[in-house]
């Protein structure tokens, strides 16, 4: 029997026929990267192939010299004995699913993905494949994420109810921040949105890529009075809420935009007063729908809650294998 087209290794998923890794967690000679989140896109690889936007994002985060050779994915490319192509994943700006094919097999590595429309990036595309290598971050039947626009409506209702308080919304710098801003704009909120300094570079990049984030203002400058931010929406990385940075806001309502906010204990643990269920990953319904739609001969599960997905595959008589790749976080910061 021939070696499989992709095999799990400690560094990440390895393709022997092309001699490359996908989303390696350690420096390797050649890497293909699905998207710019830090646990998937690391610095120090010899060569990196990714979408032009993901390469830009890596350069913003790690500096221009994050690799010796940056190769933008532009249509199908031949690497060794396989052909690779990148297809939108709907997760964050630049995110892609990577299709690797040889004469006999098409294998699709989803990276992180969602099928919920996201105005901050290109929508997920279905890609026919024989083997689906999927994430399973929210692979429990309890995860059915509500319409994100309804969650934004809850945030705006709270802003209207507590005009004297600032609303601090915890968001990750790449993806969630811009997603929440676009959702707010879609809901007709056109007031200035204040952002923590850690979000500025990536927001600027989104604007440069033609995503109209509207009036953004820095929330980092120390201002005169606490009342200055009353009634305002302020976005920042969750880690900043524990820092002295948060002390400048008047009696803040702590909100957090994440798929985990479905579970009360998770929200309470983080001291969240207004949990917003906004996820950039497939939920249970989307995940099982994707497997049903693509109907691959095999499903491999990279990271997340694979036990439940394995069970579902068994119940629906589908072949599934857990890869148990380590190094990917639930939702990276």
């Amino acid at each position, binding site marked *: 029997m021939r070696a499989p087209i992709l095999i799990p290794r400690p560094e990440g998923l390895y393709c022997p026929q092309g001699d490359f890794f996908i989303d390696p967690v350690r420096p390797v000679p050649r890497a293909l990267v699905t998207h710019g989140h830090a646990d998937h896109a690391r610095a120090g690889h010899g060569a990196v192939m990714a979408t032009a936007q993901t390469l830009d994002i890596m350069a913003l985060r790690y500096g221009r010299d994050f690799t010796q050779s940056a190769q933008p994915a532009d249509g199908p490319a031949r690497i060794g004995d396989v052909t690779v192509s990148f297809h939108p994943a709907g997760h964050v700006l630049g995110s892609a699913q990577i299709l690797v094919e040889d004469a006999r097999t098409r294998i699709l590595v989803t990276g992180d993905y969602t099928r919920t429309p996201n105005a901050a990036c290109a929508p997920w595309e279905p890609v026919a494949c024989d083997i689906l290598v999927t994430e399973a971050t929210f692979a*429990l039947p309890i995860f059915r994420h509500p319409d994100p626009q309804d969650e934004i409506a809850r945030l705006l209702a709270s802003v209207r109810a507590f005009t004297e308080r600032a609303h601090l919304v915890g968001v990750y710098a790449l993806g969630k921040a811009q997603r929440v801003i676009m959702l707010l704009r879609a809901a007709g909120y056109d007031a200035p949105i204040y952002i923590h300094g850690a979000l500025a570079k990536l927001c600027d990049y989104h604007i440069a890529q033609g995503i109209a984030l509207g009036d953004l203002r820095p929330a980092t400058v120390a201002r005169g009075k606490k009342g200055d931010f009353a009634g305002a929406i302020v976005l920042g990385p969750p880690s900043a809420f524990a820092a002295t940075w948060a002390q400048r806001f008047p009696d803040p309502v702590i909100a957090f935009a994440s798929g985990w906010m479905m579970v009360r204990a998770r929200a309470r643990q983080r001291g969240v007063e207004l949990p917003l269920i906004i996820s950039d990953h497939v939920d249970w319904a989307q995940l099982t729908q994707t497997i049903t739609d693509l109907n691959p001969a095999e499903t491999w599960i990279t990271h997340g*809650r694979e036990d*439940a997905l394995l069970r579902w595959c068994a119940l629906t008589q589908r072949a599934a294998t857990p890869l148990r790749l380590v190094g990917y976080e639930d939702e990276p910061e």
Partner: protein
Amino acid sequence: MIAGFAELLERLAFTPRRGLKLAHLRQYFAATLDPDRGYALAALTGDLDLRRVTPSLLRGLVAERVDPELFALSYDFVGDLAETIALIWPAPAQLANPALSELVAELQQTPKAELPARIIARLDQLPPSQRYAYLKLGTGGLRVGVSARLARQAVADYGGLQLAEVEELWHGLFPPYESLFHWAENGPKPVSAARAPFRPVMLSTPTDLVDLTARDPADFMAEWKWDGIRVQAVSDQGTRRLYSRTGDDISGAFPDLLEALTFDGVIDGELLIRRGDQIAPFNDLQTRLGRKQVSAKMRETHPAALRAYDLLLCDGHDLRAQPLHQRRAALEALIPRLDPARIDLSPLLPLSDWDALAVMRADPPDPVIEGVMIKHRDSPYLAGRIKGHWFKWKRDPMRVDAVLMYAQRGHGKRSGYYSDFTFGVWDAGQLVPVGKAYFGFTDAELKELDRFVRNNTTERFGPVRAVKPEKVVEVAFEGLNRSPRHKSGLAMRFPRIARIRDDKPAQEADQLATLMALLPEA
């Protein structure tokens, strides 16, 4: 409608602060019609008498809809049965928003055999947050951090009423409390038809020697302040009740004392565990509190007793407007007719001058005394904390110098600050945590402590940080109990940070043995 109730529960569950919880409740009462708001209130105060939906019933229901292995994995992740079912239940084909009253009536009246089918039908028509509210309603125990009293406070605030008035009426009112809400909205005050209602309790204000010196001792009566639970014992034409000072009915936990209420009237006193003449430490009382049923053994080993302070009503006469010395005389006449093993009189202390009283206060004859009460001889019995009539002169708090060990971030106005502190004392060269305090310090001291925590963090556990054992704080507290649940074996009452002891090196903070010596005898 269940939707509004679900939203209220959600808000309350994630709101840490009392003031905001009250605001959410007021908004809900204003926005919700009768009878739904009354049923919501009853759910919060624990006054809804529903057919209990048991966990095993729910497990059986969900097993019919969801693969047991998928359910088990989900339950492991969520950790709460009602929440797991609310989230995992298949999405409803058609949504409904039934009235809370309809759901309550259904849970009250549906025969047991038909209950599972009714619950399934409801789960099939509600979205997740409402399924959660419905299941919490059915299983009891909302766990949203709202006490019965806070809920009553919210009604009082909503209507601009006095909490005392609401509490006095409470036990004569029943869900859905339409007459109460009508009153809150400028209707007439409801008339309570209940026997043995609660009367709002008279409270005292703190005092000290400087304050007392300006007053004439001859105008006052003094007695010990016993460290039990202030209660009101009511016996009304055969109906007997024991109320906490906030009006919660605690009769069920003290049937032995109820048997001894062989009078017709209302006694204000202290609930104690008393074995002969020996009064047990507060801890012993706590083991009996909160129990729905008390075993015969518990009644024998932890006998409840009442130490009487005051007489509010007697044989159909309301004495509350009379001066204290007259009520006291009536009380002294009543007590000899009662079982001395269960009910006795709180003795008066000789009071000729304040200095002599100060000497007695400094060295009370019983460890279960937490100070002295000083009451004006002419004081009527008034609801609430009215200045100038009754004073409490507590023993000075106990103090210990402890070392800061952990800090946790606060909420609301304190978000961004480390404001909840765990501190410890030395035991054989190791620090053992002995308590947690989140008040007592000034704003400036909070800033100083916050800065110290940030600059001296050694480890992080979620929102909690461990800090270098270098900061000494003086902790004041009101008492000490044995506690098997704490590593140190003791638990403090009302600990607070009295000041920061930057003058003191950590090695010179107190030893555990010093605290152990302060424990009441077992």
